[in-house]
């Protein structure tokens, strides 16, 4: 009896599962509806007088302003400045965190010795360094870099330390008894285990770096999109300001998308290798 009913219930469950999505519209259509509803709501808010159009221009006006921006050299120069600070800051932070993380992580003594200092320095908000950056570098790109490097460094360092701690003890001892040198152990044993952790750290750091690049430009006035936003705001170019804000959002979406793709590419070998090892 049970033998009989089991497949039929399973089929029922399956039918239900496949019916649910086909009943509604495909996912991307629903998403599109969400975007349209959001834009419509935005368009209506100033039109109905919920907020003054002076403070929140309708969506159509902002999108038109963004379209004009896309044709301007000045806009692309600002995007370039922001992305330059983002890229240099991220690269310095990842390189420094990777080297230090490997050195600290591979020595149990150093790991215990630095733990308290790392745990204390890590939660310090990087924006606390804004006055220092202004004092040292003024409105140059170095100000942005100081903030970006500080914030991203900890994100990546912690992940690298987790990754190194995750290395299989037997693999490490095997490498050692086969006479692997320190460099070989790092390259062939530690690095592959650590890579997924490193990629997580880089992905988090990439979005943090954008936040701080924009922050530094907004507050300190180093060149880039953030500075343009502050200028548009103080100059009363309100729809221009909203257009630039939309642009930073799209930059953020693009960075998230690219890092996710890179992570998938770099780690494409990983789950398969893991699967074989456990099987």
């Amino acid at each position, binding site marked *: 009896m049970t033998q009989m009913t089991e497949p039929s219930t399973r089929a029922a469950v399956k039918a239900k599962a496949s019916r*649910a*999505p086909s009943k*509604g519209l495909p*996912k991307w259509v*629903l*998403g*599109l*509806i*969400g*975007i349209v*509803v*959001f834009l419509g709501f935005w368009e209506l808010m100033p039109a109905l007088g919920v*907020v003054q159009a002076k*403070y*929140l221009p309708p969506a159509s006006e902002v999108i038109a302003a963004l379209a004009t921006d896309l044709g301007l050299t000045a806009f692309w120069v600002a995007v370039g400045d922001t992305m330059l600070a983002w890229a240099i800051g991220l690269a310095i932070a990842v390189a420094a965190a990777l080297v230090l993380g490997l050195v600290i992580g591979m020595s149990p003594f150093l790991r*215990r*010795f*630095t*733990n*308290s*200092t790392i745990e*204390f320095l*890590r*939660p*310090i*908000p*990087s*924006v*606390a*360094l*804004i*006055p*220092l950056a*202004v*004092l*040292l570098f003024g409105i140059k790109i170095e100000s942005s870099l100081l903030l970006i490097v500080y914030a991203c460094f900890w994100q990546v360092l912690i992940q690298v330390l987790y990754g190194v701690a995750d290395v299989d003890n037997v693999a490490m001892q095997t490498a050692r008894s086969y006479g692997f040198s320190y460099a070989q152990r790092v390259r062939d044993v530690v690095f592959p285990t650590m890579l997924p952790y490193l990629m997580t750290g880089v992905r988090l750091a990439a*979005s943090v770096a*954008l*936040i701080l690049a*924009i*922050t530094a430009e*907004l*507050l300190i006035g180093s060149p880039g999109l*953030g500075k343009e*936003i*502050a200028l548009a*705001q103080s100059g009363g170019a*309100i729809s221009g*300001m*909203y257009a630039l*804000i939309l642009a*930073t*959002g799209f930059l*953020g*979406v693009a*960075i*998230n998308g690219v890092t996710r793709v890179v992570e998938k590419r770099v780690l494409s070998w990983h789950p398969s290798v893991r699967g074989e090892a456990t099987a």
Partner: protein
Amino acid sequence: MKILKSFGYLLGLPLILLTWWWLATSGAPNFFVPTPAKLVTTFIETWFGERMLTDVLPSIMRLVVGVLAAIVLGIVLGLAVGLNRTLRAVTEPVFEFFRALPPPVLVPVLMLLVGINDGMKVAVIISGCIWPVLLNTIEGVRSIDPVQNETSRSYGITGFSRIRYQILPSATPTIMAGVRQALSIGLILMVISEMFASSSGLGFTIVQFQRSFAVPEMWSGIVVLGLIGVALSFIFQWVQRRVLRWYHGLKEVENAV
């Protein structure tokens, strides 16, 4: 002996760094870096007086109110959206955009919409902190084990008690990860909103010191922000240990097997 050794590990590096700092600054006076003794006296003079009441506590209050409101709103909205497949699909692209939007750009927007007051600063903190909580709640609710859902349905557990006893507990580990992100974003936004448009508060005071080249005072302000950051991280870890005690216990058992 063992206690002494772990004490050495705990304080060894900080002491070395402090000594190095002391040695480096004790010779020729450096304009940019005060000596440790000078920093300590300035720290006490600057912050343990009137300023505690006019700048530090109001800033912390705004941070606490903003973050708590963002957590509550994020979880409630997250439950509503996460439990409804259609709503989830409709809202996903818009929410993803807001998550990717760097939160500091919200400061000039809310300055226009709300005006320059306490409400604006709290609104900035809420509108920046809500996204990690909201999206993690949605993700936590979405990835609940289907067997659990079926079980509570067969036992007739529905409505509020289902949310209270089944959905919230299984989503909590994911939600806590979001709360952790929200805390650090909240602290950043507290400082930025005060630096950008304010006449009081921690961020404003520190920038004021920097503009008047009161370097030791500026450093003492950086220390205050650092201490708040460290305190928040300790409070979070304490809460997380309590809230997720069962979860860590479960993981240990699973890992042992």
